[in-house]
């Protein structure tokens, strides 16, 4: 029987999933909002059904509608991509109840990882290093905990993620108010007001390990990525591997990621995120993202493994086709996220008509995108237009190729982040590999493209 997969996402990742399905000989059905009927993914999918209006709540986040659409079109599995419904235990559960394979971890694993405090406790329980931190009830206890951790501290929402719901506190006098505010914001944004404290690491690199598990107890890691170039916790440039790590630190990272995967009996693709404190040469666990990541192509480029293909196959029950010993890293890959955002206006979104779309064409460059010339970039969703990925035998040659690629990239009709990306890639700090997670915020504050 032919496998038919429902693609419950949009944009470049929908195209990526459809391509992986095509190569596997699987059929696809894409659910779209009325704003996305003319996207590249809609042109490539086997069948397209309109879920609802442009607002995500009426289409891409409408769980019952998505499941109904998948069942009614005789799909057997649902690929949630990233964002939208990809990390919702209730959606994974609803798929299971309706006989659909959710291409992602089990609902119980999603539950455990969606709660950052639980994930932190899980990491501690298997001996994975975490930042100093924890939670407490009552102001005196919270104050005592912050004192023990040492200022500055970060207040984080247990059910937040990707930087949402975080607050930095530099002085004890600000703590009580920030704690209450963070808690009430978390309550309204995530439906749960649980917050906790962690040490704020001022000079840290963001490093993450790609993991992959099947339903037969096999688990591998596919090396690490560095994603330190971030604006307000949104990743902008990523690369693999992280060239700043010593062999010993790298081994700790990979081992930690696998321990967490093992404890969860993890099935599917996942990313275990860490902070690497450059001064102390210490890693600390941040969170696990139980889905395909935007930046997965850099890992694909250095491992030669099609992650989305493997993710689909393991979800359908196939055993992993390779072992840890088969995974070999080759060269260096960099990804730049080209977005419809204006670097001169604090990366404000700039939707509109893509009048010119002339991507660079060079050996070693890859472009994951859903954009074409004449495409009307809608204002309802995230600003990602495409991901330009450069591979070279080493970091310097990958940087050189990326630099040439960005210079040749022609986009007209709307403002993009290309000028900012060029400036980042050309910057001595980036080339010298000393960038930490607050570096780009500083650069943009100075005036991004001047």
């Amino acid at each position: 029987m032919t496998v038919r997969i429902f693609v419950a996402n949009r944009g470049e990742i929908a195209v990526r999933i459809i391509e992986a399905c095509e190569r596997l000989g699987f059929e696809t059905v894409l659910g779209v909002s009325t704003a996305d009927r003319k996207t590249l993914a809609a042109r490539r999918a086997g069948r397209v059904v309109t879920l609802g209006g442009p607002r995500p709540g009426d289409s891409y986040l409408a769980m019952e509608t998505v499941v109904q659409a998948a069942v009614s079109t005789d799909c057997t599995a649902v690929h949630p991509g990233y964002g939208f419904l990809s990390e919702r235990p209730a959606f994974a559960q609803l798929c299971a109840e309706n006989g659909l394979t959710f291409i992602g971890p089990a609902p119980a694993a999603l539950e455990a990882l969606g709660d950052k405090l639980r994930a932190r406790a899980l990491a501690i329980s298997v001996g994975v290093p975490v930042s100093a931190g924890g939670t407490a009830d009552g102001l005196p206890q919270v104050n005592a905990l912050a004192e023990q951790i040492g200022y500055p501290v970060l207040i984080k929402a247990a059910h937040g993620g990707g930087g949402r719901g975080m607050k930095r506190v530099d002085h004890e006098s600000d703590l009580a108010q920030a704690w209450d505010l963070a808690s009430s914001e978390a309550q309204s944004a995530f439906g749960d007001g649980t917050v906790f404290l962690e040490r704020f690491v001022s000079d840290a690199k963001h490093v993450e390990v790609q993991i992959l598990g099947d339903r037969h107890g096999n688990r591998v890691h596919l090396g690490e990525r560095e994603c330190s170039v971030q604006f307000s916790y949104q990743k902008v440039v990523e690369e693999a591997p992280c060239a700043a790590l010593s062999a010993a630190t790298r081994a700790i990272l990979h081992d930690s990621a696998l321990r967490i995967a093992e404890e969860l009996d993890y099935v599917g693709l996942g990313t275990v995120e860490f902070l690497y404190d450059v001064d102390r040469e210490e890693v600390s666990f941040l969170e696990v993202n139980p889905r395909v990541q935007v930046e997965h192509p850099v890992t694909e480029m250095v491992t030669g493994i099609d992650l989305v293909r493997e993710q689909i196959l393991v979800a359908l029950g196939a055993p992993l086709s390779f072992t840890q010993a088969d995974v070999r890293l080759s060269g260096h890959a960099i990804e730049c996220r080209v977005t419809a955002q204006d670097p001169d206006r604090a990366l404000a979104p700039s939707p509109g008509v893509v009048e010119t779309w002339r991507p660079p064409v060079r050996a070693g460059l890859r472009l994951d995108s859903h954009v074409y010339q004449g495409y009307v970039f809608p204002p309802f969703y995230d600003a990602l237009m495409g991901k330009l990925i450069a591979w070279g035998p080493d970091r310097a040659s990958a940087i050189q190729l990326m630099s040439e690629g960005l210079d040749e990239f022609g986009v007209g009709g709307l403002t993009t982040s290309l000028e900012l990306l060029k400036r980042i890639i050309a910057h001595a700090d980036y080339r010298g590999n000393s960038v930490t997670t607050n570096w780009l915020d500083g650069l943009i504050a100075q005036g991004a493209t001047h």
Partner: protein
Amino acid sequence: MEFTEFRFEKGEMKLAISRGHLLSDSAESPRPHAVPDTVERQVSTPPAASQPAQPDRGPSPGKVHVTAPMLGAFYRSPKPGEPPFVEVGAIVAAGDLLCIIEVMKLMSSVVAEVAGEITAVLARDGELVEFEQPLFEIRPLP
């Protein structure tokens, strides 16, 4: 393209396209709704496609469409086996119940927005209808 007839089979999918004349073997014909109107779409459309995800192209002059307010299963009668809420030729008042759309066991009623005569039923009982897909055509009456 120089051909008059094209047949393609893969798994349960059977496609048959003809130009300018009826297919020579009607037993090989796919279900009517699986035959789109152009060759280009024929080749790129898989078996699952019963309706393209197109917005309402608009009713014929003097008539209006009732479109689906949500994606779901389309039901013309209150229960299986019972007569439909409306048939072609029925005169309806604004607010009259026309059909039910089910999304995951949740039933929603679709009512006529204008008074008039039902001139066409555009979706099939029990099938998936998409958001904004035309369901009925009505000729408004004063």
